[in-house]
């Protein structure tokens, strides 16, 4: 376990900024319970400093996980967000899409969001921006990337794709084997 280097921090922040924008500052500047980013093997964890200090007592091969796993670095150095980061993404989301009850199951099964399933969406969402997907009862289901901007998606046909799925809550079951271990 070690802190992130400057290059790694930049890559992680670029990814997070796509979804939560300037609210990353809320993650860093938490005065009540200061948190920090730690890297264990190739996974990035967001953990309170108090717990991070305890985890230094555990040997590296024995340390499985700590805090919240935001994602992992791929072999090529890119950062991939995991569904385990949804809690923090949902709290500080910049752009949101709410899907109707009939669209929830297709999304949780791993399909993209069609226009027919969209209940409402934030105004002025640019194209290819990260969005957090909610149900109509405001419970977070996952996150994705917009295929079209809000204005263009109004003129889409009902079977057109509004957002590409990047992560959904169904991954806890589908990716059970690889989500917490390599």
């Amino acid at each position: 376990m070690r802190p992130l280097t400057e290059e790694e921090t930049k890559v992680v922040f670029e990814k997070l900024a796509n979804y939560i924008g300037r609210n990353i500052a809320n993650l860093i500047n938490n005065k009540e319970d200061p948190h920090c980013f730690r890297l264990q093997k190739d996974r990035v964890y967001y953990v309170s400093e108090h717990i991070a200090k305890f985890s230094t007592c555990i040997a590296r091969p024995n340390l499985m996980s700590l805090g919240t796993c935001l994602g992992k670095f791929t072999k090529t150095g890119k950062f991939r967000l995991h569904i385990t980061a949804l809690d923090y993404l949902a709290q500080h989301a910049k752009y949101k899409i709410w899907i109707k009850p009939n669209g929830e199951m297709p999304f949780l099964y791993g399909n993209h969001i069609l226009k027919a399933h969209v209940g409402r969406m934030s105004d002025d969402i640019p194209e290819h921006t990260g969005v957090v997907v909610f149900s109509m009862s405001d419970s977070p289901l996952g996150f994705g990337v917009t295929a079209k901007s809000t204005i263009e998606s109004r003129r889409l046909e009902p079977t057109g794709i509004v957002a590409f799925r990047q992560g959904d809550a169904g991954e806890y079951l589908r990716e059970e084997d690889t989500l917490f271990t390599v």
Partner: protein
Amino acid sequence: MVLHKKKAPTVRRENVSELSGNKQASNQLAVKSTATPKQSKYNHRSRSGINGVAKKVKKPRVYTEKELGIPKLNKSIDPEGIKRPKGKKGKVFADEDAMTRILLQVNEAVDNRNASKLERARALEAIRESKRKEIEAKEEEKKQALDSMKSEIKNKKHKLRKETKKADVATIDKKSEGPAKKRKSVSFK
């Protein structure tokens, strides 16, 4: 008293063979063996001395260029003026200040990107809107022209009909005029 005879000093003579002195003779009489020279079992170069103790071989002292005061050679691979950082390549961890700085940089880049995307989307939307209005105006014009033509044609027909009707009515009236009708009168006698 004993008298000692003086001994003449012994004359020493060297017995030098003519073969060694005369080159031609030695050349002719020399035995040329074809056998290979014997290889000795022992390594004459080994350091071990008589009792197997290593001999101390003193190497001549090599002076470095620095000690001699010679300036560094300016090679193309290793130019003299350029200083490269030495030491182990380590990781520079990001502290709070670094994270804040990186955050600001990333935010600026993302905001610029999003702003440009939104601007482009709005510009495209404005263009589409203006095109749509143009098309609608043209269609409206065509429709109006069509309607006016239709109404013109209708009016013509109506006029013709009216005129023909009038003409018919006039002829019918003329025919039916004949003897004047007596008005009925009522007398109160």
